């Protein structure tokens, strides 16, 4: 019987010819990614680890350290890296949100398994990698043993056709799916179809990342030409070859859903969650906003900053609105600075922050006060996510957030074009 992409990777890494939904398999993990938070609470230095070459350490969630506890995490992380000779270390200065750092260093590789203790690790699915959120204790165990177990979940396939209209991006694709189809708890998501070719790698990353919001396990894209080009371009010259997976023509799916990209509009998720709660921007209530945020692993990519800069260039953020922009990594920061995007954004009145998770998870750099309304391009709009539980969080694309910052209300980005 045929297998889906995820089933193929799990079977390969478990060393068995096939797997099917419901089966539990123990798999070799190709890369374990440790983040700063993991070193800040209850860190125990292990006596031995599986393989220092299959470990990356990324400082991202709380850098530069906003609390003494986080600073101590940094101390622990640096000692761990030195003790075990970890070469893939992205310390402050070479840092960024882990999913971005992983991608831009060619560490998410087609056909491989990546483990990281962040719920949005499914981001690496954009590069045909099987990655999903795992708890810190489990990632620690994988660090030690090099393996873990998975229960194979049924897969939902999205068959994409057509190409996105102007002003519509990966975030809108995802919000449309979340709004129409709702949760995918204990399911994998697989994207395929002719429409994939027209989706940029940054749009794919946004879509893959957001899978966590509908409670999916893995989410994955095929290793087509664009994917392989991206990985090759970002990999070190001495990187080993990889072997991407394709879905078998007779793979079995829990559902196959066809989506015409060319029919999509900009979307907004209303506060609380995305499932069954996302609508075309034209159908969302008219809301004044106080904070607009462009950033996160999903939408702080160079392309996102390019789009945002092109919308605000030569204009001003509305009175009473704070526009915060967080490039997803130090590399994105430098590239966006060189390209003039940061200048355009700052000239329009935006605050450009250091590359970190910060505002996305309401930890530092821009938390919300009671009664405030925020429109964000980050990943998650749970109550209290970005600060006060009495703030409201709407979620949208960087284009929609940038356009809304200019108007001071939730706005269709297609309406603010010159």
């Amino acid at each position, binding site marked *: 019987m045929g297998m889906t992409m995820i089933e193929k990777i799990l079977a390969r890494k478990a060393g068995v010819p096939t797997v099917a939904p419901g089966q*539990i398999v*123990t798999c070799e993990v190709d890369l374990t990614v440790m983040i700063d*938070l993991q070193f800040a*609470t*209850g860190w*125990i*230095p*292990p*006596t*031995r680890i599986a393989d220092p070459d299959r470990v990356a350490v990324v400082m991202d969630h709380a850098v530069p350290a906003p*609390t003494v*506890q986080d600073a101590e995490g940094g101390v622990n992380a640096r000692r761990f890296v030195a003790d075990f000779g970890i070469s893939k270390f992205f310390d402050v200065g070479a840092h960024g949100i882990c999913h971005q750092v992983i991608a831009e260093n060619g560490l998410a590789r087609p056909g491989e398994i990546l483990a990281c*203790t*962040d*719920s949005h690790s499914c981001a690496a699915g954009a590069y045909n990698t099987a990655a*999903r*959120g*795992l*708890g*810190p*204790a*489990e990632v*620690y*165990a994988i660090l*030690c*043993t090099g393996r873990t*177990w998975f*229960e194979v*979940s049924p897969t939902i396939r999205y068959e994409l056709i057509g190409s996105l209209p102007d002003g519509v991006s990966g975030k809108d694709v995802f919000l449309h799916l979340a709004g129409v189809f709702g*949760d995918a*708890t*204990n399911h994998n998501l697989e994207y395929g179809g002719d429409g994939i070719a027209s989706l940029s790698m940054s749009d794919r990353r946004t879509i893959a990342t957001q899978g*966590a919001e509908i*409670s999916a*396990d893995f989410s994955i894209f095929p290793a087509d030409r664009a994917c392989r080009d991206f990985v090759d371009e970002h990999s070190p010259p001495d990187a080993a070859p990889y072997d991407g997976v394709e879905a078998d023509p007779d793979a079995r799916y829990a559902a196959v859903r066809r989506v015409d990209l060319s029919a999509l509009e900009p979307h907004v998720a209303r506060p609380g*969650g995305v*499932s069954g709660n996302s609508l075309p921007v034209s159908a969302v209530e008219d809301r004044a906003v106080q904070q607009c945020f462009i950033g996160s692993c999903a939408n702080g990519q160079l392309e996102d900053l390019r789009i945002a800069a092109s919308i605000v260039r030569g204009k001003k953020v509305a009175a009473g609105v704070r526009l915060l922009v967080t490039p997803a990594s130090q590399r994105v920061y430098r590239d966006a600075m060189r390209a003039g995007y940061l200048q355009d954004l700052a000239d329009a009145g935006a605050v450009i922050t250091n590359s970190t998770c910060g505002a996305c*998870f*309401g*930890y530092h750099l821009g938390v919300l006060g009671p009664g405030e309304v925020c429109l964000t391009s980050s990943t*998650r709009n*749970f*109550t*209290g*996510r970005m*600060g006060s*539980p009495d703030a409201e969080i709407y979620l949208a694309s960087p284009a929609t957030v940038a356009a809304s910052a200019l108007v001071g209300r939730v706005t269709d980005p297609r309406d603010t074009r010159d």
Partner: protein
Amino acid sequence: MLRTRFSGRVWVVGHSVNTDAMYPAHAMKMSIPEAARHVFYELRPGWVDDVERGDIIVAGRNFGLGSSRPVAALLRELGISALVAEEFNSLFFRNAINHGLPALRVGGVSTAFADGETMTLDLSEGWVANDDRGTRLPGDRLPDLVLEILSAGGIMEKLAMDGYLPETHRRS
């Protein structure tokens, strides 16, 4: 030795209760005992004062959607003995098991119990009973691999037994 059958008083919460409702970001700056004071801070203010060692949380669909933050560590700190839900987010489920907190999937459980009733559950046979109503519901029995982690008391305890942690973290 893992107790696979035990009883406890239940607290019932609804569908799609997410991790941020149990472990808010501001609590991530605290120690585990302090952070545990913030579980359900918005959903059920004051609940942490009423919860007692051995209590069981019953939930509806999509329980634990959200972050990888180890909510299970806080729930264990509060003395919660098990989670029983109609459906778990798989990351949340794995976190519970890895922290030695049993989690059992039982269809229809959230309407079969009310706050304060007593549940008896069996992890290896996979069922729960409402001792007050005299009813019983079948659930998913936990796979052996999962029972093994629970028997060790969690994944860190298993690593300690296998010699991956320094002496000071090994239990005799």
